[in-house]
């Protein structure tokens, strides 16, 4: 077992070395590499090998502005010299090789711009160093898709990793345009990629380019089987979204074979390697399969769980920025292409110095002498309000024992929410349907009145309650609020969405509504207020990806404390 792990590590490091070599031969065609590893000696070793192989590599600070990326006006130099000074920017000149540290924290805007630059065909390449701790924390997907090689060297110890010897790529680069691919290569790679559930056709294109580079490195002008295997390992396997089906592997290999014969007679003729005619994609698939971690599916499930759209989109959550929202006092700073200047404050800052500066520069043509340190930037605070949606079970089963506590808890929470200036909404479900008793409000009085009038009794239309909460959450996030749902119930769903009393359908409806909510990435908490905790509710909480808190016999104070603890980040 121990040996197995060691071999795996050795292989990983070997692959990393191959990746460095491939990338050095043809960085532009591969778009770059996504390296997932914590900062440490192993990563440093890899990066320094890359630096030696690619001497033009330039570090890109994580918070780089557009001016520095694409070129722009150098304001400080412009102001001090009195005439327009431009900077060229990292991507402004010819092909650029960028090294992006902390890529997992890259803002979607920057990622989009980089993706765009990689798409232009100007020959840029990016090495993204991703230090994400959990699967959620990763390079934005649109950018990852455009980086040819994906490497995960997490968990390698320095002892596993020999220092990478410098090598020369000049000859390989010269040979590269002449490298031919056998006619069977494309069908084989496409079959493998579809077996691995890779949707993006970019992957196969990258694999081809990697195979070409490998052949060139090896001094050949024809891509062979080993090149394709290595390319599969570097490019395709890390992108797998499902395990290849073992049983059907044989069937699928038959598909491309007849087609190869008809389609690519010329490449077959020019191909001196006889064995490559029979190149089975099974071989590639085997290589890929060997690389797939056994817990792939679990990992994928973790990644598939919707990342909070808010974190990506910037919609919701409180942000302090310098673009819009409630104005804050302006700050000194440099224009970075993102922020807006506060002209009045800038002039005010420059005003007291005018006489002194004029004395120093009597011939300056400007009417006002402004220097870089006078610049004041506007800042805004955009408060996106939180909305707490209570979905309260007012059915007969819940009513007698628990409804009073639930009401009390809502009131308490509301009082706190009021102090924090959150909004609160109340959805109650009983009988055959759910009602929005209280649209999003900050009014304490109104809430108390509506709560007091909340009647109990009847069936438990849990799915309807969730649907109302979902609709409300959707509307409110459209209005810039950040909704959170607190579901208080005893979990015995017995009324289906269409109002019929069918326990089975009711449970199914509730769980599919829960999944719909989860797909919207609305945070939630499920409070089981039944006297005996319900396993069913735990399942529902899983569907919601929400914490499940059983609180039998809790009074309103404990209820509100529990909800508060979960909701407070």
């Amino acid at each position, binding site marked *: 077992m121990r040996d197995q792990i060691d071999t795996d590590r050795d292989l990983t490091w070997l692959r990393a070395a191959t990746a460095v070599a491939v990338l050095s031969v043809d960085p532009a065609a591969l778009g770059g590499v996504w390296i997932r590893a914590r900062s440490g000696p192993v990563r440093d070793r890899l990066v320094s090998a890359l630096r030696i192989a690619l001497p033009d590599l330039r570090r890109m600070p994580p918070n780089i502005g557009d001016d520095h990326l694409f070129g722009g*006006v150098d*304001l400080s130099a*412009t*102001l001090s010299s*009195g005439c327009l000074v431009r900077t060229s920017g990292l991507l402004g000149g010819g092909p650029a090789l960028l090294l992006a540290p902390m890529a997992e924290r890259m*803002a*979607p*805007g*920057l*990622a*989009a*711009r980089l993706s*765009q630059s990689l*798409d*232009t065909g100007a020959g840029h390449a990016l090495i993204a160093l991703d230090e994400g701790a959990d699967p959620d924390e990763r390079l934005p*997907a*649109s950018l990852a*898709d455009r980086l040819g090689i994906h490497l995960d060297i997490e968990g390698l110890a320095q002892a596993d990793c020999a220092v990478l010897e410098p090598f020369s790529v000049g000859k390989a680069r010269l040979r590269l345009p002449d490298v031919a691919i056998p006619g069977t290569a*494309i*069908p084989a790679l*496409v*079959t493998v990629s*579809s077996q691995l559930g890779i*949707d*993006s*056709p*970019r992957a196969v*294109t990258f694999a*081809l380019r990697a195979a070409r580079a490998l052949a060139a490195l090896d001094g050949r002008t024809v891509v062979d089987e080993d090149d394709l295997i290595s390319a599969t390992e570097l490019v395709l396997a890390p992108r797998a979204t499902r395990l290849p089906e073992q049983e059907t592997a044989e069937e*699928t290999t038959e*598909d*491309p074979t007849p*087609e190869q014969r008809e389609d690519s007679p010329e490449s077959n003729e020019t191909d001196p390697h006889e064995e490559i005619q029979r190149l089975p994609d099974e071989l590639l698939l085997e290589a890929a399969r060997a690389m797939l971690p056994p817990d792939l599916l679990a990992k994928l499930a973790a990644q598939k769980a*919707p990342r909070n*759209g808010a974190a*990506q*989109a*910037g*919609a919701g959550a409180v942000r302090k920025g310098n*673009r*819009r929202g409630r104005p804050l006092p302006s700050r000194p700073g440099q*224009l970075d*292409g*993102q922020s*807006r*200047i506060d*002209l009045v404050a*800038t002039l005010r800052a420059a005003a007291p110095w005018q006489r002194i500066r004029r004395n120093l520069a009597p011939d300056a043509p*400007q*009417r*006002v002498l*402004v220097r870089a340190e006078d610049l004041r930037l506007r800042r805004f605070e955009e408060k996106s309000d939180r909305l707490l949606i209570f979905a309260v079970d007012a059915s007969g089963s819940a009513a007698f024992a628990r409804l009073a506590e639930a009401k009390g808890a809502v009131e308490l929470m509301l009082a706190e929410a009021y102090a924090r200036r959150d909004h609160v909404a109340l959805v109650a479900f009983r009988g055959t349907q759910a009602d929005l008793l209280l649209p999003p409000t900050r009014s304490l009085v109104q809430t108390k009145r509506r709560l007091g009038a909340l009647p109990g009794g009847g069936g438990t239309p849990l799915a309807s309650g969730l*649907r109302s909460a*979902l609709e409300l959450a959707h509307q409110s996030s*459209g209005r*810039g609020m950040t909704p959170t749902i607190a579901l208080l119930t005893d979990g015995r769903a017995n009324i289906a969405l269409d109002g019929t009393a069918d326990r089975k359908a009711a449970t199914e*409806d509730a769980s*599919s*509504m829960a999944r*719909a909510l989860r797909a919207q990435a609305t945070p939630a908490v499920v409070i089981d207020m039944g006297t005996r905790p319900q396993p069913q509710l735990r399942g529902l909480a899983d569907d919601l990806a929400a914490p499940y808190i059983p609180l039998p016999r809790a009074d309103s104070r404990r209820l509100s404390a529990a909800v508060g603890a979960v909701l407070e980040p």
Partner: protein
Amino acid sequence: MTHPFPFSAIVGQNEMKQAMILTAIDPGIGGVLVFGDRGTGKSTSVRALAALLPPISAVEGCPCNSANPDLVPDWAEGVGTDMDEKPTPVIDLPLGATEDRVVGALDIERALTRGEKAFEPGLLARANRGYLYIDEVNLLEDHIVDLLLDVAVSGENVIEREGLSIRHPARFVLVGSGNPEEGELRPQLLDRFGLSVEVASPNNIEDRIEVIRRRDAYEMDHDTFMDHWRGEDATLRARILTGREALKAIETPDDTLRDCAQLCIELGADGLRGELTLLRAARAVAAFAGAPAVRRDHLRQIAPSALRHRLRRDPLDEAGSTARVTRAVESVLG
């Protein structure tokens, strides 16, 4: 820079290609929204379309590509009266673009260094008479999307800020793309796009192989590849230009109007924008097909693109909007 990938060489994705061609025939249809997987040729097709279209004739140096010297806005400086041919503009609007960059703003450098009040035009000016392409439109900040759609509908960009009061024409076809798994657009915004298409990676191996073959040939053997497809692109360009000419003369029988209305009622699409777009797009389909009048098959051909994003959402409907539109088309048009 190499030539963009040829439009006719894009494998499959017929619905997306149709939508793009229709906006080239009649830009008044409104924007196109393309939702689907990554790497399905969304941005490739926008760029390819622009390269396919004939160059526009514009006043040399005009920041908003004016078609004749009278239309050059008065704030544009140093613009002569010479005309110049330039390719149809395709402007990329990156995520995280600030409002300043999009609409234009006070030219800070000139304000500070020379004390002059000058306008620095933004992306909207440059996109005039062309295409504005937004990748991941669903992640764009709402206020920017609002602003874009407003300008796209009115055809004019109005700037009232920082002591500037400026307007300039901004007529462009908005093309937005995105991956629905990463967030949705608000229904109000969806409705503003003329057509919407769903793209997916081809699900048969043959098509996929062909995609990669062509892409590889494009990259490795560029000139031969472009020569090969130039003819097809030219044919398509000629058809688009003929379609543009034919558009005005296309007749719209009353029965077609009735069909449009019936379809929208059947689907419960809100507002009248659905009918109007459907009709307009169907007319462009007829023009492209060389037909004298709009017929039922033209409607049938474009109904999914024109209507699928205008339906009320039903979170539990697994089948999706396309299936609902198809069903309605079958029941109304037979």
